[in-house]
Structure formats: C-alpha cells, structure tokens
C-alpha cells in the first residue's frame, strides 16, 4: 500500500543544536515531496518541495531536505535550531505525473526546543 511514514512522533532538541526529521515514502515511482510546518492553532506552511533535479533542496527559515531515491527518504534538516522552530512538522507526497487530489500526509513529528 502507498504510505508516508514519519517514524519520530516527538523530538526534543536544545536551541542551537542540529535537527533531522525523517520521512519515508512507499510508492511505485518518485513522487513530488513536500515538508510543511504547523504552529499551534495555525494552518500548514510550506517549508520546501522537491520535484526533480538537485536532490538537496533549500527552503525557508534555514531548512533543507535531501531526497535519497535508494532509501525512499526525504529527511528535513536544520543546522541550528531556534526556539521559534518548535512546531509540528509534516511530510507530504503527491504522485506524479498527476492531476487532482493524490496528496498524502505523514502523521507528523512534534518538535520541542529547550533553551
């Protein structure tokens, strides 16, 4: 079955430490890949996306993600976490080529940042 997996339900890091959030997908072909962030009571904000080309993509707020085809992974990273990064992070995939609704979310990773 097709799926998006975020293995880490909750992660705690110290401010200034590096961060990596994991995302694995299970599809027959390489999908379009996205990372979204959701602050409490807010909607989802797009951090970055991957369609093709360079497998290391840069996003907003200092985030980057690397697509690894061999591992079916699209992990999100940040070299130095800020307290304002505390939020829920969702990996999402859309099938390609595609029109319409096939847009699937992982269950999310909750990030806590400690001073």
């Amino acid at each position, binding site marked *: 079955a097709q799926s998006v997996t975020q293995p880490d339900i909750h992660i705690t890091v110290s401010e200034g430490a590096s961060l990596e959030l994991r995302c694995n997908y299970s599809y027959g072909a390489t999908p379009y890949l996205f990372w*979204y962030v959701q602050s409490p009571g807010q909607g989802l904000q797009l951090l970055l996306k991957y369609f093709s080309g360079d497998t290391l993509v840069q996003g907003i707020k200092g985030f980057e993600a690397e697509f690894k085809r061999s591992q079916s992974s699209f992990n999100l990273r940040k070299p130095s976490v800020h307290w304002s990064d505390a939020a829920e992070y969702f990996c999402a995939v859309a099938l390609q080529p595609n029109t*319409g609704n096939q*847009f699937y979310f992982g269950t999310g990773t909750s990030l806590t940042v400690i001073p």
Partner: protein
Amino acid sequence: GAGVSQSPRYKVAKRGQDVALRCDPISGHVSLFWYQQALGQGPEFLTYFQNEAQLDKSGLPSDRFFAERPEGSVSTLKIQRTQQEDSAVYLCASRATGVSDQPQHFGDGTRLSIL
C-alpha cells in the same frame, strides 16, 4: 486575497445540529481541497474541486458531509446531523493549477467541537 481564509475559526455545536464551514481560497486558484485533521494526526483528504467541479469526494466519511463550490471560488463544507466523531480541525487548501507540481496553500482551519 493574500492567503486562504477560513471561517469561523472555532465552532461549537450540539450533537445532531447542522454546521457550515466556509473557505475563501487565494484569488484565481483553480484547485480547492478540504481536509480533516484529528488531534495528533496529519490531515486526511476529504474532497477536491477544480473550479466549480467536484472531481473527487472519496474522502468524505459519510453522506452527512457535503461540499460545494458553486462559482469556482468560495467553498462551503456542510456537515448534517453532527456526531461527536466529527470533532476535528477542518483545513481548506488551494492550489494555483490543477496539477500536483504546485504546492497547496492552507488556511488556519476551523476547529469544530461537537458536544
């Protein structure tokens, strides 16, 4: 508009009442999506519109759920005879085109509580 706007932000209803949730997408966006997000979960797809046409309603959990987008802009999600399991955050998203290589832009959601 500048972003996707949803109203009301919070809705409390008694079991058995009907509710209507509104979504104003980004102006000119072709695609509109509704998602249901249970506490601690990722968004789950409900339905998808391309302009005024409802192309996919496979995610609607029952025939009590109904969505429309009569003029291809504003959309309303209606839930009839609400039940406690309908309590969730309902997210609306719009996308510029009908193709999945564009990201979805999310509103802040409507938090629905059924008593």
